[in-house]
């Protein structure tokens, strides 16, 4: 459904993405895991056509993404980012329905879709009239998720969707997201630096370091058969102390 074939992207002298190939199968979730600067967000921006690869190609439904096909490709994707990237001058409802308005949807259709999605992601209807500045971090992310789902794209791209949240909202939204992914059978490409998040969401994890794919597999694969000393080091760095897990 979505595939990168030997993609490289450099910014000046820095190689952000270095000969990366990966595929996202329909209805599955793939995690791009890595520390900051590993190239994981750049991969999402490449898939969205916000950046053009230096070499290699990106395919969406077997069509190479280019200037001409970018618009069609974007129709198949919803995008959620860390702080929500909501427009401060629009209410939650206006933000959420932006893509539908651009498509010229009828008012009633938009309202129905909005109500349904608000219920799905657990956002109180009354909050839809609020401006982003009047919402909590969790409410903003839920709004961002509604916005991404508005046109019902088969693919969701999420860039650290829980990164800016406090631990409790984070746990709540994490549960909601898992439910939504499964209920809607979306193909999900999720970027995170958090090993536990990767564990919770991921069927397949791609661990990146300095723009390169270090290892690909399930969490168990990475934990038990690290392909590289870096994999073990990365997982261990975020593991809770044994004494703590025992106490909990």
């Amino acid at each position: 459904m979505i595939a990168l074939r030997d993609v490289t992207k450099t910014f000046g002298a820095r190689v952000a993405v270095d000969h990366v190939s990966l595929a996202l199968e329909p209805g599955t979730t793939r995690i791009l895991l890595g520390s900051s600067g590993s190239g994981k967000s750049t991969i999402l921006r490449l898939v969205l056509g916000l950046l053009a690869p230096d070499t290699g190609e990106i395919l969406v439904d077997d069509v190479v993404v280019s200037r001409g096909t970018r618009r069609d490709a974007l129709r198949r994707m919803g995008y959620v980012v860390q702080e929500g990237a909501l427009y401060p001058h629009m209410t939650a409802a206006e933000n959420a329905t932006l893509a539908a308005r651009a498509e010229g949807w009828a008012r009633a259709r938009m309202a129905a879709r909005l109500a349904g999605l608000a219920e799905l992601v657990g956002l109180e209807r009354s909050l839809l009239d609020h401006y982003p500045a009047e919402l909590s971090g969790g409410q903003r992310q839920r709004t961002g998720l509604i916005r991404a789902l508005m046109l019902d794209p088969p693919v969701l791209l999420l860039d650290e969707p829980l990164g800016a949240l406090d631990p409790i909202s984070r746990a709540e939204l994490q549960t909601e997201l898992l439910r939504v992914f499964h209920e809607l059978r979306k193909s999900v490409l999720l970027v995170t630096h958090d090993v536990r998040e990767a564990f919770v969401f991921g069927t397949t994890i791609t661990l990146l370091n300095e723009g390169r794919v270090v290892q690909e597999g399930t969490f168990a694969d990475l934990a038990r058969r690290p392909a590289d000393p870096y994999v073990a080091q990365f997982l261990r760095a975020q593991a809770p102390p044994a004494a703590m897990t025992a106490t909990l």
Partner: protein
Amino acid sequence: MLVVAAATLARTADGDATPVRVGSKSFTESYLIAEIVARIAEQVGEAPVERRFGLGGTGMVYGALAGGEIDLYPEYTGTISRAILKDSSVTTVPALRARIRPRGLIISDPLGFANTYALAVRRDTAARLGLRRISDLDRHPGLTAAFDPGFLDRDDGWPGLQHHYGLRLAAVRGMEHALTYPALISGRVDVIDVFSTDGQLARTDLVVLTDDRRFFPDYAAVLLARASLAARLPRTWAALQQRLGGRIDNATMARLNAEVELDRRTFAQAASAFLGEREAADAGPARRRLGRDLATLTVEHLVLVAASLAVAIAVGLPLGLLAARHRFLGQLELMGIGVLQTVPALALLAFMIPLFGIGRVPALVALCLYALLPIVRNTYAGVSSLDRQLLDMAAVMGLSGRQRLAWIELPLAAVTIMAGIKTAAVLTVGTATLAAFIGGGGYGTLIVTGLALNDVPTILAGAIPAALMALAIHVAFEALDRLVVPRPLRGSPGRAR
């Protein structure tokens, strides 16, 4: 306010009788003669009269006459030959008439006075030494003199005069023109240079020495007019010739200048006194006229500001957006507009005359050009500093260029863009006062007149309303912010954004 504006515009628009448009330069004597001309034309009643006074110097007012913006104005023969024909060998009125006729212009009979350089001494000095003519100075080289720096420098001033008459004076020093009269009267110097119609000459007991060897060029006052005026309004032209030809001698002109400059009478009062009218004594109508003038000037000023600002916004917004879209082109554009801003306002106005003549249009063009920079710059800054993630999101959601601009970029940049427009508006209120120098009307009319008269109250009568208008516009735009800037983006203290 709008009703007044509409009424004024209607008044300007109607009246199929083409008016007599009387112009003047921006100094007392020119205003005075122009006012007298206007009154005579009004008395004849052949056509309505339009006063377009204070049009700067020869370049501006002659440009206005040649361009058909005015019908006549007071001029001097010496200026016609030297500055207009650029041929100082043409001196007599018949010769000037013959030379200027192909330009579609005519010259009236001389009015009687001449505004030329002259030398003056105290009456007691003149009596004691028997001084009547400049050549008499030859016999008294011990006399001291104070001359204006301009007179000391110019070929048609002291250097030429000295050579022409073979004069030698013991002590000659430079002194500001305003100070030479007190210096002469107090006896610190014996000889000064004067203009032959200076108001002070009417008030002090001085003797003006005759230019017996005809050194100083003749600056006899005449009316310079479009030939079409005499053809179109023969009775008016005949009345002007008959009532002014040879009727104002140097002493009379000096007295009229003194009434305005030293006694602080208005041009209107001095002119009607000269014409033997009986209106000047009553202050009532004068005050009423000032009130009506202020309303008219306010409308004119407001129209200047509003129209130039509207055009500047219509042009500046797209230019600002263009600059934000194309980095290289944008820098070129911003530099160009920046350079425009360094041109002094008066110079910019002067450049407008050959292109657009005088009056409202060139003033509007110049004001637009000045208002452009803050609008373009702020639009550019506002749009090019938007959060990249927000713009990416618009691309991802498939917004068209137009939707992105209308829904995202302009609203988000609204605060910055509005700040630029506000800056431009307030600046324009100030700059618009300069429009009066090219007959653009507005509060500047009072300021220009006040400057010509060195009359502070008149200057303030124009400057204070202009300041008040700037305040009013500031308040109005703050209110407009509420309409234009989305609520969450408006700065409200105490709320995090």
